[in-house]
């Protein structure tokens, strides 16, 4: 005789499994706006049938645990970085419905930069900005959005124009940019306003499904604990102290679907769930550390040495050569503040498949230019992998039988050629010989493209070839 009209959304997990918490209820304080908002989002995801392609990019703040509640894809971004992460996810997965959920500390303070640029680029993402005018999670510090006069632990006399500056209005700020398609501010104060918020949430998600462009909804949201008032009063507080500062209105409502990159069919997500995507083959276990050119599965190479040894440059040269051969490539450097001395290393991935992460914790190959590099990375080389050591500086190599270890006196070799500086090219040449990862001509062609002088080019060629010969000799020895 009864039918259910409103109940717990299917897009919530049945149980909220989390460390040390009650698995049946959220961790939010009584009367917190986060709970209301997440119900609205879950309901919209249910109603639009997008649970399988919705990806939450979560914040740091009270709602960081949101991934324990919403049963959708999720990534927890560093504090404030959700729009940058969402940009990457959306570009890699245009059929996904990618949404950021961020507090005012997260979005307007530490992440102010990310949101401005994502909005300016008009990324096809949805951003929910939960503005409670305070840092809730850390115990009620002032936020960029705290209204004037409000006392917080870091504005104990009340925020003043002179000392802390006036509150920032993010909708108004973003509305100065051409990128966003939709910008609206709503408030959670009573049933009527909550229904407006519901409408905005749905519109912002639907916009993305329809490819209409960057959508931003600011939600003025009660934080009874941070404000130290009971829940009912917190709702009135939003009305009394926040709405006058942050007017509720639609700031922008456009259709930017004409700006979508060509060749991207956002509607495709409707019919093709992720599960139907062609499976990405697992990276082939490289034989002998690396696989010969043409059959390379995935090479995860770490190059490490002192700053000034040309470690990063050698990695970059390899990356450039690999790109010319049509491989997927990532190169990330890491170095100290010193121009000379100090340590430097870079991680390089070469693959025939799109690369999920540029980070390498288990290299298939390590090129160690100095002794400290051995201590730092040699233990992590994958079994069957390669350790190529610069014997001029590496006196001790690990006692590992499960990897191939090749030592090249590259400094002496380079000095003999009359250019001690090309130690790095000697090492690179040896690496090319041992793995066949990339054709040396591709690397030299990249040098030419970059305007390397003919004399320098010749010297690099000689160094690479000397490295190759040394590798053959070392293997025969």
């Amino acid at each position, binding site marked *: 005789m009864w039918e*259910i009209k409103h*109940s717990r959304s299917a897009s919530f997990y049945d149980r909220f499994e989390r460390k040390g918490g*009650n698995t049946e209820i*959220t961790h939010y304080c009584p009367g917190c706006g986060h709970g*209301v908002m997440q*119900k*609205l989002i879950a309901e919209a995801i249910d109603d639009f049938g997008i649970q399988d392609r919705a990806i939450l990019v979560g914040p740091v703040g009270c709602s960081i645990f949101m991934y324990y509640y919403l049963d959708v894809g999720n990534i927890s971004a560093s504090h404030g970085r959700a729009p940058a992460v969402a940009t990457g996810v959306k570009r890699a997965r245009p059929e996904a419905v990618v949404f950021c959920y961020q507090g005012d500390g997260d979005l307007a303070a530490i992440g102010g930069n990310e949101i401005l640029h994502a909005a300016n680029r008009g990324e096809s993402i949805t951003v929910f900005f939960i503005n409670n005018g305070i840092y809730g999670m850390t115990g009620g510090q002032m936020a960029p959005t705290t209204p004037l006069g409000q006392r917080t632990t870091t504005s104990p006399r009340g925020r003043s124009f002179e000392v802390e500056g006036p509150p920032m209005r993010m909708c108004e700020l973003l509305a100065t940019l051409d990128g966003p398609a939709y910008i609206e501010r709503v408030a959670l104060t009573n049933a009527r306003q*909550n*229904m407006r918020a519901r409408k905005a949430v749905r519109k912002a998600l639907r916009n993305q499904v329809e490819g209409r462009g960057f959508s931003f909804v600011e939600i003025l949201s009660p934080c009874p604990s941070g404000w130290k008032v009971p829940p009912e009063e917190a709702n009135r507080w939003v009305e009394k102290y926040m709405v006058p500062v942050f007017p509720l209105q639609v700031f922008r409502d456009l259709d930017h679907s004409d700006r979508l990159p060509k060749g991207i069919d956002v509607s495709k997500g409707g019919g093709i769930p992720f599960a139907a995507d062609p499976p990405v083959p697992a990276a082939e276990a490289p034989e002998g550390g690396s696989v010969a050119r043409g059959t390379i599965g995935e090479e995860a190479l770490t190059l490490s040495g002192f700053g000034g040894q040309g470690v990063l440059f050698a990695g970059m040269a390899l990356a450039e050569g690999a790109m010319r051969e049509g491989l997927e490539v990532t190169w990330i450097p890491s170095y100290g503040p010193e121009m000379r001395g100090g340590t430097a290393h870079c991680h390089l991935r070469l693959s025939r498949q799109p690369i999920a992460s540029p980070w390498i914790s288990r290299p298939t190959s390590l090129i160690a230019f100095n002794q400290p590099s051995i201590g730092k990375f040699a233990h992590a080389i994958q079994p069957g992998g390669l350790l190529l050591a610069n014997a001029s500086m590496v006196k001790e190599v690990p006692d590992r039988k499960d990897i191939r270890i090749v030592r090249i006196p590259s400094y002496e070799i380079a000095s003999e050629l009359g250019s001690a500086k090309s130690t790095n090219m000697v090492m690179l040449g040896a690496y090319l010989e041992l793995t066949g990862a990339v054709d040396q001509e591709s690397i030299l062609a990249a040098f030419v493209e970059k305007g390397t002088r003919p004399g320098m080019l010749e010297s690099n060629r000689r160094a690479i070839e000397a490295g190759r010969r040394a590798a053959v000799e070392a293997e025969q020895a």
Partner: protein
Amino acid sequence: MADRGDVIIAHHLCKGCRLCIVSCPAKVLEQGTALNQQGYCAALYRGSGCTGCGICFYVCPEPGAITVRVRKLGEGKPAA
């Protein structure tokens, strides 16, 4: 006349914030006096008068605390 709506409040999931109580236009919700497992005095339905408007659901922050039901179409009349 029989009620159009019915509300079920999950006693053990309620945090006693009172937002549903103050928002219900029919004023059919109240706060109980017994503490639940979480230490909150959960909201209670008086047992009649719910219109099924759903307002309590949309002001409640807790995903599973409130379920609102309405009478199936064609069953508006009181049962004999």
